[in-house]
C-alpha cells in the first residue's frame, strides 16, 4: 500500500531567475548550509512565489552552484530559482535583498536564458591576503608554482585523503597593487585589506576535483616552503566564463541579458 501525498501537485515553474549575490563581512564565516537556510527563510519572509517540488517533503526549487567555502568572502555567488508566478526581477531583487541579512546582499537578478547556470561558471578569481614581511619570497614562491608542470596536493575529504594536482587549474597567479579595482572589490567584501600582507590574485578554472584557494596555498607551501604566519584571508572576486587568452572572467549573466534584449 504505497502512500501518496494528499492534495493536488504543486504549481509548476513558470519563470526561472538567476541571482547574483554576495557573502561578505562577518557572514563570510557562514557555511553553504547556513546560507541555504537563510535564503529559504528570506524567500518566505518576502512572500516570494517560489515553486516547490512534489512529494512528501516538498522542497523549494533552488539550484545552488559553486558556493565559496566557509570563511571565504565572496562578491560573486550565483544561484537559480524557479517561480510559480511571474515576477518583476527588479522588484524581486529589492524584496529579497531586504529580507536577507546584511552581508548576503542581492546584486542583481535576471531572467534565466537557455543553458545551465553551472556551465557558464567556468572559473573564479580569488583575492588572497597573504600575511608576510617578505614580499619577495612570496613572488618567488608563486613564480615557482607557475613554473611547475604539476603541483601535487592533498586534501582531507569524507572518504579519506585525496591526492590531486593543483597546478593545471590555475590560469594566473600574481600580485595585486593597492588601489586597483581588484583591491577595491576585495576591500568592499571584507571591510579593509589587512596590513602586512602580500595581496595575490589567482584565477582558477573550475575542475573536478575542484581546486580551491586552500589547495593553491597548500601547493605554494609544498613547492616553495612558503608558509604564512596566519591563515590568509580569501575573497572570491568573480566567477563566470573564462577567456583563456587574457584570463579575464566575464559576467555570467551577460548571456541571459542578451536573450532578453533579443526577444523583446
Amino acid at each position, binding site marked *: 500500500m504505497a502512500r501518496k501525498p494528499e492534495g493536488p501537485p504543486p504549481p509548476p515553474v513558470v519563470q526561472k531567475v538567476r541571482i547574483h549575490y554576495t557573502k561578505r563581512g562577518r557572514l563570510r*564565516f557562514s557555511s553553504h548550509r547556513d546560507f541555504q537556510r537563510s535564503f529559504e*527563510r528570506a524567500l518566505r519572509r518576502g*512572500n516570494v*512565489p517560489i515553486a516547490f517540488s512534489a512529494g512528501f517533503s516538498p522542497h523549494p526549487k533552488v539550484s545552488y552552484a559553486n558556493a565559496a567555502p566557509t*570563511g571565504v568572502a565572496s562578491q560573486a555567488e550565483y544561484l537559480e530559482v524557479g517561480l510559480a*508566478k511571474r515576477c518583476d526581477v527588479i522588484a524581486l531583487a529589492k524584496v529579497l535583498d531586504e529580507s536577507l541579512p546584511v552581508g548576503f546582499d542581492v546584486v542583481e537578478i535576471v531572467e534565466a536564458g537557455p543553458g545551465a547556470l553551472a556551465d557558464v561558471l567556468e572559473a573564479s578569481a580569488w583575492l588572497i591576503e597573504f600575511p608576510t614581511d617578505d614580499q619577495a619570497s612570496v613572488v618567488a614562491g608563486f613564480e615557482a608554482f607557475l613554473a611547475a608542470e604539476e603541483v601535487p596536493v592533498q586534501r582531507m575529504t569524507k572518504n579519506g585523503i585525496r591526492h590531486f594536482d593543483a597546478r593545471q587549474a590555475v590560469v594566473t597567479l600574481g600580485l595585486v597593487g593597492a588601489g586597483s579595482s581588484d583591491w577595491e572589490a576585495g576591500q568592499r567584501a571584507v571591510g579593509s585589506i589587512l596590513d602586512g600582507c602580500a595581496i595575490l590574485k589567482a584565477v582558477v578554472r573550475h575542475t573536478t576535483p575542484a581546486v580551491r584557494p586552500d589547495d593553491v596555498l597548500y601547493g605554494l607551501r609544498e613547492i616553495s616552503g612558503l608558509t604564512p604566519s596566519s591563515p590568509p584571508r580569501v575573497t572570491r572576486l568573480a566567477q563566470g566564463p573564462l577567456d583563456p587568452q587574457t584570463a579575464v572572467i566575464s559576467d555570467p549573466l551577460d548571456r541571459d541579458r542578451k536573450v532578453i534584449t533579443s526577444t523583446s
Partner: protein
Amino acid sequence: MLGESVFPALEALLPFVTKPIQYVGGELNSTVKAWDECDVRWALMYPDAYEVGLPNQGSMILYEVINEQEGMLAERTYAVWPDLEKLMREHKVPQFTVDAHRAVGDFDFLGVSFSTELGYTNLLTALDLAGVALHCADRGIDDPIVVAGGHAAFNPEPIARFVDAAVLGDGEEAVLLMSSILRTWKSQGRPGGREELLLRFAETGSVYIPAFYDVEYHDDGRIRRVSANQPRAPWRISKHTVMDLDQWPYPKKPLVPLAETVHERMSVEIFRGCTRGCRFCQAGMITRPVRERSITGIGEMVKAGLDATGYEEVGLLSLSSADHSEIAEVAKDLADRYEGTQTGLSLPSTRVDAFNVDLANELTRNGRRSGLTFAPEGGSERIRKVINKMVTEEDLIRTVTTAYANGWRQVKLYFMCGLPTETDEDVLQIAEVAKRVIEAGRQASGMKDIRCTVSIGGFVPKPHTPFQWAAQLDHEATDARLAKLRDAIRADRRYGKSIGFRYHDGKPGIIEGLLSRGDRRVGDVIETVWKAGARFDGWSEHFSYDAWAQAAADAFESEPIDLNWYTIRERGEDEVLPWDHLDSGLDKEWLWQDWQESISGAEVEDCRWTPCYDCGVCDQMGTSIQIGPTGQRLIPISVVDSSAVLAGS
C-alpha cells in the same frame, strides 16, 4: 573603553575554530543599541553552546523585554567551545556578547539562565574568560551583578558562592524590577557600593542574595538552619509569577540564526504552568498555576512571528500542549489560515490521553507528518500511580492504534528508570508495552513495517517536588535494570526488530542529582572539577563522571558527607532542605503528604477540572488559574499577496 567591540581580535581567531558562524552574531531580529545611550546594560547568557542556547525561549523573551525599554540594552552570550576558549586565553580575548561583541565584564548585569544544572561549569568558564572573580565575595563595584535564573535557580545553593543573586520563576517582570533598582542606585551616585545595591534587591523579597544568608550544619552533615545575616534580608524569597500571558506576547520577533540550531522553528508558548501533578516533574510543580494564552493571542503571535522570521514550522509550546482548553480550535484555525503555505505546526509535548487523530491531522495538514511522541514515563500501571502519571496502558494502546490506523508508522515512547519504589518488574513491563504497541499497530495498519522507539533515562529527584525526599537509584543499579530491559526487548524475535531502544547510562544522572539537591558545600566540587577541566557537562563527549567523582571525594574529604549522601540517601520529614527558604509557593506539608501518598499509590487529580487540593501556590502567591475556553475563533487572514509587489509585466 567600556562597551568597545572586541570583534577585530576575535575575528583573527575564527579561522581556527569549528563553526565560526556561531560567534559572529548578526541574526535576523537581533538588536544592537548604543552603549552610551543606555544606563542599564544586561549581558544574557545561556550557559551552553550557541546551537542549544539561541532557540531558548526564556533568553529570547528577556532579550526583547529589556531592549524595548528606553535607556536599557541586552546582548547575548553563550558558552564558547574549548577550541575557541583556548585561543581566547592565548590572545587575551574576553568572554564577549554576540550582538556587539562587547566584553561581558563591561555590563551591569550578567544574567544566566539555567535550564539544567549541568551548565554550572560553563558559568565558571565564562566568568573566568570575562575577567570577573569566580567568587562573588571578591567582586568590586564595577563588576557585573551575576544573576541566576531558570528552573535550576529554584535551588541555587550549589552555585551560591559564584552568583550575586538568583531569581525564581518568571523573569519578565523581575528583570525590569532589578533594572529600575540599579538605575536609581546609579543615578544616586552608587551609594553604599555593591553591598547596598544587593541589599536593595534583597529587601524586595523577590531577589535572592545568597551572601545575606548563613547556613549552619549538624555534626552528621545535615543542615541545622539557614538564617539571614542582614536585617534587610527577608527570611524567605518568593518566586515571580506573570499573570495574563496575552499581555506578554514575547518573543514578538524571534531571533533567526544563520547557524544551525537544535530547533529550526519558531515557538509560541500557548500556556505556562501545569497541574497534572506528575510527582517527578519539577517544571510542573514550580510553574503553577496554569495560565493560558488565548486563542486570539496565539493567532497574533503566530502571524507576527512567521512574518518576522520566515520559519516553516511553528511549535505550540507548553508543558502539555494538548491540554490547552481550545487546542482543537487553535490547531484547526491555524491550519486553515496557513493552508497551502507549507507551514507546519507541532506540539512538542502531547499526553497520551489528550491525543486525538483530528488534532494530529490538523497539525500535519500543511506540513510534514513526522513521528508521534508520547511519554507514559512508567512501564507498569503500579509505577504510573506512584508518579501520578494517570495514563493507563489501555489509553496508550487505543491512542497508538488510532495513530497507526491513520497512517503514522512511527511512535516514540519516553520512560524513566529509577523511580521511587521501582523494581525490575516495573521496568521490564516497558518491553511488554512496546510489544503490545507493535502488535496493535500491525493489526491496525495491516502491515509489518511499523516502528516503536523506546527512549529511557534515569530519574533524578528534584527540589520543590514530592520526590525531593526520595533516594536516587545508584548508577550501577540503573545500568543493570536498563540492560535487563534491553535483553527483554531483544529476546522476542517477533518484535525485536520493530522496537528501537535508546537509553542513557546512569552516571550523568548521579552528578545532575548532586547538583540538583546539593547545598553550598557542593560549590567546592563544582570549582574543583572545573579547575580540573570540566566543561559542557551536558554533552556526553565532554562529560567525565570520574572527574566529578574525584572532585567530590577531594572536596568532601574532611566532611561527614559524600556523593552518595547527596544522591542515593532518602531524606527525613524534618530535615532542613537546602532550598527551604526559597518559596515556590508549594506547601512543604502538602509536598510531604503527596510523597507519602505516592508510596501508597494514591492519585491526585488536576485542579483545572476538579476542586483545589491546596498545594499552596495560589494562596501563597496571590495567583489563580487562568484558562479558557474563550469561545473565540481565528478569522482567516489573507497571506499578503506578493503578486502586487512582485508582479511581472
